[in-house]
């Protein structure tokens, strides 16, 4: 139900590397799950509104008042790589 090409496309969207011998098994597993999920295709749901929010309230807005920020050392404390005063990463291909 989901083929090799779709698996590779989805993996790219999700930024997941897949080795060659991982592709087939995951395609099979996902297909099996999708087969079960297809059950929801049986239902007639045309005039039903989707539940986009479980809590039936609105708002919960925050007043525009500053709160304390993290000290830089704390913000950077868990960084795998630090450059100068920031998080170091390989550059995106510009």
């Amino acid at each position, binding site marked *: 139900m989901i083929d090799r090409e779709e698996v590779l496309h989805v993996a790219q969207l999700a930024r997941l590397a897949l080795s060659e011998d991982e592709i087939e098994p995951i395609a099979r597993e996902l297909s099996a799950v999708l087969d079960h999920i297809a059950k929801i295709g049986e239902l007639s749901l045309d005039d039903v509104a989707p539940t986009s929010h479980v809590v039936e309230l609105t708002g919960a807005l925050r007043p525009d008042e500053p709160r304390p920020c993290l000290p830089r050392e704390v913000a950077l404390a868990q960084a795998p790589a630090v450059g*100068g005063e920031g998080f170091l990463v390989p550059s*995106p291909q510009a």
Partner: protein
Amino acid sequence: MSDAGAASAPAGNGAGARWEPVIGLEIHVQLATATKMFCGCALSFGEPPNTHTCPVCLGLPGSLPVANARAVHFGLMIGLALGSELAPRSIFHRKNYFYPDLPKGYQISQYDEPLCRGGTLGEVRIHRVHLEEDAAKLVHFGESGRIHGSEQSVVDFNRGGTPLAEIVTEPDLRTAEQAGEWLRLLRTTLRALGVSDVNMEEGSLRCDANISLRPAGSDTLGVKTELKNMNSFRFIERGIKAEIERQRALLDGGGQVVQETLHFDPTTRSASGAPGAISSLRSKEEAHDYRYFPEPDLLPVAIDEQMLADARATMSELPSDRAERLRRELSLSAESAQLLAFRSELADYFEAALAAGADPAPPAQALANWVGGDLSSRLGEGEDPADSRVQPRALAALVGLVAAKTISVGAARQVLDKLVADGGEPAAIVESEGLAAIGGGDELAAIVAAALAANADAAERVRSGNEKAIGPIIGAVMRETKGRADGGEVTRLVHEQLGI
């Protein structure tokens, strides 16, 4: 001064007579709130990197966004100012993609239920206005910072999470100049609202353009490109011009325009030598699939009466309303009213001058002409007259003197030059420079007679009906009087002395 709001395509649209450019703008405005869109970090203005962050805007595990009430308030003000329809209920969506300046791996934005829909500003219809959060900043690291063969960048999250209003227009614009002029109107409007600093150099106002061409007279739309990275008004106009030219050349040569995102580089030149080259943003991935879905961590925004009332209460007079008022109350011409109102510093100065109590009082239209014309041109593009040496009261007095015929227009211009250079009072300058008009009386009549005598041929032609020949005679009088004579009075005397 270009004709702001021309709906008909003026000649010289840059695409030749065969093609009509169709331009829409996508503007991002950083809102001038105290804190970020979804967390309580204070907004940063050039602070040291990564000193304005918290678990939310760093995207730490377990953190949750909470929307800024003031940002919503500013969004409503923008919607009201643009005459948009305000959605009774709007929701936030997640826009999912990977980039180092996007800490959560998604941007919280709005998708198919935005805060505002529709509206107009000037001659351009608005498509929508919505709220979202800004990305962080990515800067290149080090001079030759290559590690394992790859270049490195550093991410600074200070800016990440800053509230943005995104304003999208309908493709109603037809020339680069029109786009530039309209963008100035938008900027003035937003500044008048007080919702943003709208400073392109600082990045609080950003503009991308969607550009396509279609055969002149057609009403279908051609393939459009998106042009980014134009961070000044000048570059926007240049960029749009360059892209229109690029598309024209392509289509004239039988090619097709490809839908893509383009980057404008003002520092280089195009193949034809025009300043600013267009290049394709090397897209390492295909068209983004943002996988939008409603943001489950935020509740829908419902607009109630109180929020609307608050938004209306904080709105000051908008440029279009001000222009209307100036026309109505002071009987200014439409062009004058618009010219002043769409550059609020001019209108502010004008109204201050009018209220300054000069005696004799200047007529409103005359004062408007002087503010928008002679004064502006002497001060230079974009200069605020309030910053000049010409006090509003002084200009008002000057215009009053002209209206009372105490001095001629020519003399007044000389006085204005002095005011611009040194400030001061017009009456005193007229006195010290001896610029008082020569009104009626013998002095002027004698000078006119002398001029007629010295220009007998011209005088003869005028007498026989060729009014145009009066030029040299007037010129002679003006030279003699150093411009102080009133032109109308001179003409009258010439006719009188010639017996016509």
